[in-house]
């Protein structure tokens, strides 16, 4: 068994080394893949805060991913087409600046997470899974018929947005941005888990009544976790949109919510780096298997099945042993 902290360091080093090697070998697409993995990992890190530590199995995190994506899409669309965005109370030119887009994405998804969380947290268990799905589906269908922003076709942004001091079109530079965002989220996650809030949240997942009897409100703890979680996934959505220079309703789809959950389980639920391992593995498999046969889904399915049957606690569980033992 390897100490989890060593593995974590090795993983991050790996995720950083792959694009650097790709840079040397002049394989820009590998960098794009690494960026994709980093962004999916970021989204899943967000979900993991709700799912892993708060015990909130959200099957609707695509809602936040999509809101992040559409924040980027809409702001950049207006900037790109020189059509001011009329918000009713103010007129806004749109923007191509990443920091502003991120801010909007984070604030909007946090706000929506607050609303969804308020309503959803009345339920628990499978009911919670399904009500979060319901909200995401509402966004999905709304986006599909929102013809102003392309409906099902989505919005294409021809040039990637700007980040002060960087050329975001250079793959490695955009990767650095995403990697930095991932590191920041992981750092936040680690601090959160060890913080007073994390202690209370952890207990709220296991024994809500106990938390109540010490004078805290478990529902509110979970709500805050849900909001933080949604905000991080929203940020990932904005980055994902920028990676593809494109947003569409598929960012809201339940497949995406499911995929995020799968990433976490694959890596290890409630493990700091679980989402990162999951994302790296998933993106690699998708890329490598796809090269062999058009029926690669069978192979992917078999591998996932193998992980469930023979690696309880995900890949990290396999390598480091069960949670709480190291």
């Amino acid at each position, binding site marked *: 068994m390897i100490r989890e902290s060593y593995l974590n360091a090795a993983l991050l080093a790996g995720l950083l080394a792959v694009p650097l090697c790709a840079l040397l070998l002049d394989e820009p697409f590998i960098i794009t893949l690494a960026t994709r993995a980093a962004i999916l990992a970021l989204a899943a890190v967000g979900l993991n805060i709700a799912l892993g530590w708060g015990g909130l199995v959200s099957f609707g995190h695509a809602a936040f991913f999509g809101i992040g994506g559409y924040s980027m899409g809409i702001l950049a669309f207006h900037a790109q087409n020189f059509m001011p965005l009329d918000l009713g109370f103010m007129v806004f030119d749109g923007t191509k600046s990443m920091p502003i887009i991120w801010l909007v994405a984070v604030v909007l998804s946090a706000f929506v997470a607050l609303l969804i969380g308020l309503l959803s947290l009345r339920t628990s268990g499978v009911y919670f899974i399904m009500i979060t799905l319901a909200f995401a589906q509402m966004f999905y269908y709304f986006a599909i018929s929102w013809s102003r922003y392309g409906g099902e076709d989505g919005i294409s942004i021809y040039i990637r947005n700007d980040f002060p001091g960087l050329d975001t079109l250079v793959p490695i530079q955009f990767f650095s941005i995403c990697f930095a965002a991932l590191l920041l989220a992981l750092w936040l996650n680690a601090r959160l888990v060890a913080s007073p809030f*994390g202690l209370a949240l*952890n207990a709220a997942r296991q024994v809500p009544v106990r938390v109540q009897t010490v004078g805290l409100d478990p529902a509110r703890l979970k709500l805050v976790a849900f909001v933080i979680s949604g905000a991080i996934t929203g940020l990932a959505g904005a980055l994902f949109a920028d990676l593809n220079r494109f947003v569409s309703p598929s960012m809201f789809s339940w497949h995406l919510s499911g995929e995020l959950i799968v990433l976490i389980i694959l890596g290890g639920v409630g493990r700091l780096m679980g989402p990162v391992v999951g994302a790296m593995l998933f993106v690699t498999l998708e890329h490598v298997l796809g090269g062999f046969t058009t029926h690669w889904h069978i192979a992917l399915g078999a591998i996932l099945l193998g992980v469930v049957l023979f690696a309880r606690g995900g890949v990290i569980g396999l390598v480091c042993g069960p949670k709480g033992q190291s």
Partner: protein
Amino acid sequence: MTQTILETRGISKSFGSLKASDSVSIDLRAGEIHAVIGPNGAGKSTLIHQICGGLRPDAGQVLLQGQDVTALSTAARARKGLGRTFQISALAMEDSVLENVMLGALGASGRPWRFLAPVMGDRALRDRAEAALERVGLQDNRQTRTAALSHGQRRQLEVAVALTLDPRAFVMDEPMAGLGAEGSKTLTGFLDGLRDQAPILLVEHDMDAVFALADRISVLVYGRIIATGSVDDIRTNPEVRDAYLGESA
């Protein structure tokens, strides 16, 4: 006259046609252990739930230190000084013993909304938690996973968590449940010393413990208090013998 810490005034609760609490008035005074006994299904746990906030009474009031808390949530009552242990242990089993008491201390501090500073680095919380552990004698097990504790130790931990809240009153539902003779004896001794800290409202079927501990006993049958009095009053009350004690006492 001693001060009344906790009091119910005519609380009633029905489940359908069943009257689980029928105008129950009971009080807990400073420094005493007040035991509530009664047959199974008499409504003891239901009474506890209403006192602690898990159930809302259909009628009547719950007063804590003279203040009406009937409308407050469980969490709010806890903040006002109601310390509770459960019939079945409710502890974070995956966490260490220390983390469980830290949670109590955190609740008592009322400041859970801190996201970045490590909780274990908070000296004030830490001291409070350690003090509670020491009080129940679990200080050597602070790093043990709660799941690995024995039954009796879990009971002690529950009390420790309640202690961190510095409660005005304890409410305990069958703390002896599942403890062997020896365990019961130890816990009895421990609870005996606890009454100086805060009075205890104790629901218990273990008559040895009740008779050893209680200053007063109330007997609940079909949702009603049929008698309240000293140990000897109750022991000899024929109604109580019929409804509850049988020949055993």
